[in-house]
């Protein structure tokens, strides 16, 4: 009889759950693809270049550190997701050194300098985008027009256009109304669809959807590559939630607190009084949906317990409210997340050990 193979001896437990970190990360990458595809569909080659450079730069940076640590970690997918997300948060016309530098900064400085995967305390993607926003404000405002927009109009993202309009002294009114009076170029498709809806569906209510509602809904405006199509982003987010890849506490707390603050206080800085903030515009422009479901849910930089996650999400909502309405750097989401990350160790300290107090008594 042949020599029997030796039996493997390993410690208990001998079974493991189905979830693995590899699967988690690559699932997130997969769920970003619909939104990325929409961005590429709208902006063609420039968007593809930006995404490619961002992801490639991140992978290259990770490879560089692999030389020092003598362990190749590209397979765990986190560098790819970081790079992809940075690319999605770039305007499509950004000069290519911007996403390259942002990705390199994110991986080399924010992630690897602190010890690599799991050891960083600041979200690398958010920090990389903030770095780019501060360093190259011009480069980060290189918007591209969507196909089908009016000839000769300079492309501006709706949020930035709104800020410019208010700075120029537009009279207080709803965001979409302000943009329309400023002559923001909504697409022809938007005009046709809204015309039909207003005439046929809503005529009996007397309600009129302002120009731009449909464009914002499907993401047919200028903007960052990945933030445009909220429905596709929500699709990806629903998949992630359904598969328990991400937890609902952070995004739901984030969005609800921001929405509440927006509705209640949003009108005040614009001189419109209480309970007059524009919620639809805030949610569908800028990267708040992308940030809430894909950036803020990064487990490494969020709290460990569910109550902690709710507090974190709420603090992000408050921070974003102030940054959107009173700040001026981009759309505030990456900066809010970076600031929120600074609070996470404190939140963990308060929530993690609180429930374990009886062990301290027993010890």
């Amino acid at each position: 009889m042949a020599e029997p193979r030796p039996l493997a001896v390993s410690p208990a437990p001998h079974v493991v759950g189905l979830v693995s970190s590899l699967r988690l990360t690559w699932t997130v990458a997969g769920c970003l693809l619909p939104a990325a595809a929409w961005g590429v569909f709208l902006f063609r080659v420039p968007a593809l270049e930006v995404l490619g450079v961002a992801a490639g730069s991140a992978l290259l940076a990770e490879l560089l550190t692999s030389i020092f640590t003598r362990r190749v970690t590209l397979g765990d997918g986190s560098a790819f997701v970081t790079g992809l997300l940075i690319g999605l948060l770039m305007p499509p016309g950004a000069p290519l050194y911007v996403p390259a530098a942002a990705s390199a900064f994110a991986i080399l400085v924010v992630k690897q300098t602190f010890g690599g995967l799991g050891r960083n305390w600041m979200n690398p993607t958010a920090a990389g985008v903030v770095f780019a926003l501060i360093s190259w404000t011009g480069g980060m405002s290189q918007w591209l027009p969507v196909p089908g927009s009016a000839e000769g109009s300079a492309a501006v993202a709706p949020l930035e256009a709104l800020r410019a309009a208010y700075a120029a002294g537009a009279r207080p009114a709803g965001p979409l109304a302000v943009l329309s009076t400023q002559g923001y170029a909504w697409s022809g498709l938007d005009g046709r669809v809204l015309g039909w809806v207003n005439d046929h569906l809503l005529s009996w209510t007397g309600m009129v959807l302002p120009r731009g509602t449909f464009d914002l809904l499907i993401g047919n405006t200028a903007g960052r590559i990945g933030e445009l199509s909220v429905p596709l982003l929500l699709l990806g987010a629903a998949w992630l939630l359904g598969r328990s890849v991400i937890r609902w506490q952070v995004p739901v707390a984030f969005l609800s607190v921001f929405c509440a603050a927006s509705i209640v206080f949003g009108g005040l800085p614009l001189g419109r009084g209480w309970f007059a903030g524009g919620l639809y515009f805030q949610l569908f422009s800028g990267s708040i949906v992308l940030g809430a479901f894909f950036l803020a849910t990064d487990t490494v930089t969020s709290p460990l317990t569910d109550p902690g996650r709710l507090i974190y999400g709420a603090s992000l909502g408050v921070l974003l409210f102030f940054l959107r309405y009173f700040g001026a750097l981009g759309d505030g989401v990456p900066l809010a997340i970076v600031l929120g990350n600074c609070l996470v160790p404190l939140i963990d300290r308060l929530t993690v050990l609180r429930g374990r107090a009886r062990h301290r008594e027993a010890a």
Partner: protein
Amino acid sequence: MKSRSLARRGILNGNPVAMVLVGLCPAAAVTTRVIDALWMSVGVFSVLLLTRVCLSLLSLLRDGESAGPSADLRGGEGAPRIRWLGALLIASCLTASFELVLLAFAPEESASLGIYAPLIAVNCIVLDRVEPAAGGKHIPTALLDACGLGLGFAFALLLIAAVREVLGAGTITLFPAGTFGGTIEIPGLSSAPARALGYAGGGLICLGYLAGLSRLLRRRPVPAAEEAGTA
């Protein structure tokens, strides 16, 4: 302690900015341009040197040649306060002199350094040497110690400034001389530099990397003789 290694210690192992992490305010604030860092280094170097020498002379006069390093402990209740008062006075005078020199020879530089020139008087590196100055009355030792620290400070500041200005502004600013305007523009970088490095946050990141890399490089084993000497 060998005098040679004392000086070397100030530059490398005991570098105030990179290793001991004192004097960080100017290190982060005035390193946006190389020329600012240069003038700051000159200021700190001269003030540190002269303060140290003055303090050593003073303690020599007060306690005499025979007193050992623990003389300050036997100096009585009032001695430390007198010593600190003296140190601050001396440092302030020297700093004021330096400011006047700056105003005279490089007035735009004086404006550029702003509040950080007068703050040399309370720079931690200068004040860090008040206690040892009381004990170490050997003038040549004091001189070498101060030289080492001053050079170390200059080394660190210039390094940080070089990185911050090249990457953060795309230029290198030096003394204007003749037809040379003083600013070297780096092609490519100067059109789109990473301005984040020009802000305080970027400065702190550079500082952090300097400190980290210094510690990493210090891991090299120290030769036994030198270690015995500096122990």
